[in-house]
């Protein structure tokens, strides 16, 4: 599967890693609910680091559509929370 880290790169990951990715994503979600900024930063970094470590970068000249897209690495808890409530990261 192809996972994009927004503002960074696309990564090619083994499909078998999907469950682990899902776990990490849920962990991030839990920290958003708790409102704990430090916990959010740590959990989100773990998710990004997992993708960077497990994936291989898709070349710039290759045109691929991502299966999953992760927010940029400098996203704040407030921005992430807004994703679920209102305008979200990408306003229309």
């Amino acid at each position, binding site marked *: 599967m192809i996972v994009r880290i927004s*503002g960074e790169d696309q990564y090619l990951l083994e499909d078998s890693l999907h469950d682990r990715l899902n776990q990490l*994503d849920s962990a991030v979600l839990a920290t958003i609910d708790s409102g704990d900024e430090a916990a959010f930063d740590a959990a989100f970094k773990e998710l990004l680091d997992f993708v960077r470590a497990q994936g291989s970068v898709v070349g710039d000249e290759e045109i691929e559509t991502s299966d999953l897209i992760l927010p940029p690495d400098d996203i704040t808890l407030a921005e992430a929370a807004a994703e679920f409530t209102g305008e979200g990261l*990408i306003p229309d």
Partner: protein
Amino acid sequence: MAGLTGRMSTVVKAKVSKLLDRAEDPAETLDYSYQKQVEQLQNVKKGIADVVTAKKRLQLQETSLQQQVVKLDTQARQAVSSGKEDLARVALERKNIAQTELQSLDTQVAELESQQEKLTDSEQKLRAKIESFRTKKEVIKAQYSAAEAQVKISEAATGVGEQMADVGLAMQRAVDKTENMKARADAVQELEAAGTFDDLTALGPGEDDIDRQLKSLSSKSAVDDDLAKLKGEIGAGGPSGETGELPAGGEADPVGEPTKEQSA
């Protein structure tokens, strides 16, 4: 995937399909996409230029504040050697405020620097993809039937569209951050110019009584330099009323030193 990733993916995909919706037939998809891609590339260039402009502006403010710090430091030293502890305290307090502002500016400049790098990187990626799309569309046109070509072109257009949406997001974030910093820089500048708030006006061109006193002290020190030095050596830090806080501009002279308004 439900979480943050799922939501982000959905939003981006919605944006991409919206981007491509307007084209009906394959040729149109191709032309429309390519035209949009080139436009987007121009936008990114403009976005980078905006960030650079904002950065330069903050750097100018930094230079001005650095000069202010040097000036206040000099004035504090002069005040001490003249036995004017109150005045020295005020100068040091303002120097402190200027230094705090400087640190905050440093952070902002670094932030814009990183935004600039990100955008430049995004621009290169998008440029590479657009170039690739251009080559690919010729191959698709030559090798596939109309129906197949439509599918292939849609795929390629969606892929580039995703990159475009991503660059768009990076730009949006850069613009937001730049706007916030601009607003802050404007606010600081207005306060400086208006001369209303002591803690900030003292850093800018707005002069108040304290500034005038400090200035008068500087010019006096220039004249009575030797005398001041001597006083400093002999009876350093003469009588002083320790106020401990920054007097408001326009208040009565806190040191009992006659203010020489004309000596600037």
